[in-house]
């Protein structure tokens, strides 16, 4: 972990089906950085996050994330240290918020006793038995932040973290982001709200036409 | 049908479809070549 960049992409391209979504991406992110990622609708921001999360294979170039090559089986070993909150919640609507967290905790090998604590930390102490599908979008978001608090992550990838969140939650999220950076992790935030991101990010990059500028 | 009629029927199926199959591959090769501008 000492000194080595958390994310290192050189000349990376991504194809989905027969279309080239990203091309020639060069990006280096060091520990402690908060990076804003901007771009028009359809510029490939979500694909870029999934690439860095090791969930999508690069078609060209070379990429290292948390010391693992994006094309080697090592990437399965480091996935547990990458947190991602996409714009569609990755939780099961049939299960309660508590059950969703319990599921993630058991997969990650984290003690389930942490669940009430992290739910309280995101202001959902009373919602542990609430069905996820019947909860508002903002509550589902908060539950996802609780999941990222519960599993100790080195890299946090956030897709539009401010959408659907109220004033309190935004403060909560920004506090979490800054704490993650202070602890030696890194955070990448995709957003359209440049002012807000520039206030907390150490730098920002822009995706245009599938390339970083 | 006489035995030879059955044989003729079977051979038409076998050889006829083989020719159709081969020609379809040839035609697809040709059209794909054209569409990617390979005029070799």
């Amino acid at each position, binding site marked *: 972990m000492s000194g080595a960049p958390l994310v290192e992409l050189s000349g990376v391209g991504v194809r989905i089906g027969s279309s080239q979504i990203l091309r020639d991406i060069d990006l280096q992110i060091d520990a402690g950085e908060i990076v804003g990622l901007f771009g028009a609708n359809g510029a490939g921001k979500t694909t870029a996050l*999934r690439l860095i*999360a090791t*969930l*999508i*294979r690069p078609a060209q170039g070379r990429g290292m994330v948390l010391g693992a090559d994006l094309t080697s*089986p090592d990437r*399965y070993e480091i*996935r*547990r240290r*990458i*947190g*991602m909150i*996409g714009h*569609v*919640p*990755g*939780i*099961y609507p*049939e*299960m309660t918020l508590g*059950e969703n967290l319990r*599921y*993630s905790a*058991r*997969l*990650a*090998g984290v003690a389930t006793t942490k669940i009430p604590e992290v739910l309280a930390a995101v202001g959902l102490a009373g919602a542990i038995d609430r*069905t996820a599908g019947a909860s508002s979008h903002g509550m589902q978001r908060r539950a*996802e932040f609780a*999941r990222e608090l519960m*599993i100790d992550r080195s890299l946090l990838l956030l897709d539009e973290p401010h959408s659907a969140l109220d004033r309190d939650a935004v403060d909560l999220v920004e506090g979490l982001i800054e704490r993650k950076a202070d602890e030696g992790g890194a955070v990448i935030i995709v957003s359209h709200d440049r002012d807000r991101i520039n206030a907390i990010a150490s730098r920002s990059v822009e995706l245009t036409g599938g390339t970083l500028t | 049908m006489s035995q030879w009629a059955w044989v003729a029927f079977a051979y038409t199926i076998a050889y006829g479809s083989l020719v159709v199959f081969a020609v379809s591959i040839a035609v697809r090769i040709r059209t794909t070549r054209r569409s990617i501008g390979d005029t070799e």
Partner: protein
Amino acid sequence: MTTGFWHQVAAVIERDLLRERRRGDVLWITIPFGAIALLLIPLAVGTDAALLRQIGPGMYWVIVMLFGVLVAVGKASSETLPQQDASSLAGLDPAAGFVGRSVSSGVLLLIFELVVGLVAVGLYNISVIGIPWLVLTLVLAAAGLALLGTLTGAIVNSTSAGTTLVPLLVAPLSVPLLLGATQAYDGLRFGHSILSWVLVMATVVLIVAMIGVLTARPLQET
């Protein structure tokens, strides 16, 4: 395999069964669908009691094979991309995901087999014989079908066909299970040894389980 592997398997089983319990797809849709199919057959082929008694076991197994696949591709066992991503990033080993899903589908299939089986026994006046062996064939058929459904579900995952392709892929591959199950019942009825049929079914289960575990990672790549 580490203890972490089996913890993950348990977590996936719990998730699938919880989702199914809340949704009730198998209980309220697939099982009634199978039962009504058993009701339709006599309307089409005639209601001669002797005939129905003769074709009943076969019809029952055909319906289990054709409709059972729906359990493995149902809403409760399918996931959206963000859900899959979240599981992957929680560290879910794809092989553990495969095993967990297969077990939960297998449990649901067994329930499907039992309920639809009772309907078949009632409607067609089928005699229930050799219960320990019968239970074994039911379990093996459920396991084999669940594994086939889960594996082909993983194969078509993130292609444009989605789950519509799964029944076409599973149906021809389930032939050894169908023959094993039906011939085992005949064997029991006529007092023959059914060991060879049980072995055929067990071999299917083992082979598909092995392929599923070994190819779980390549199949997750998108």
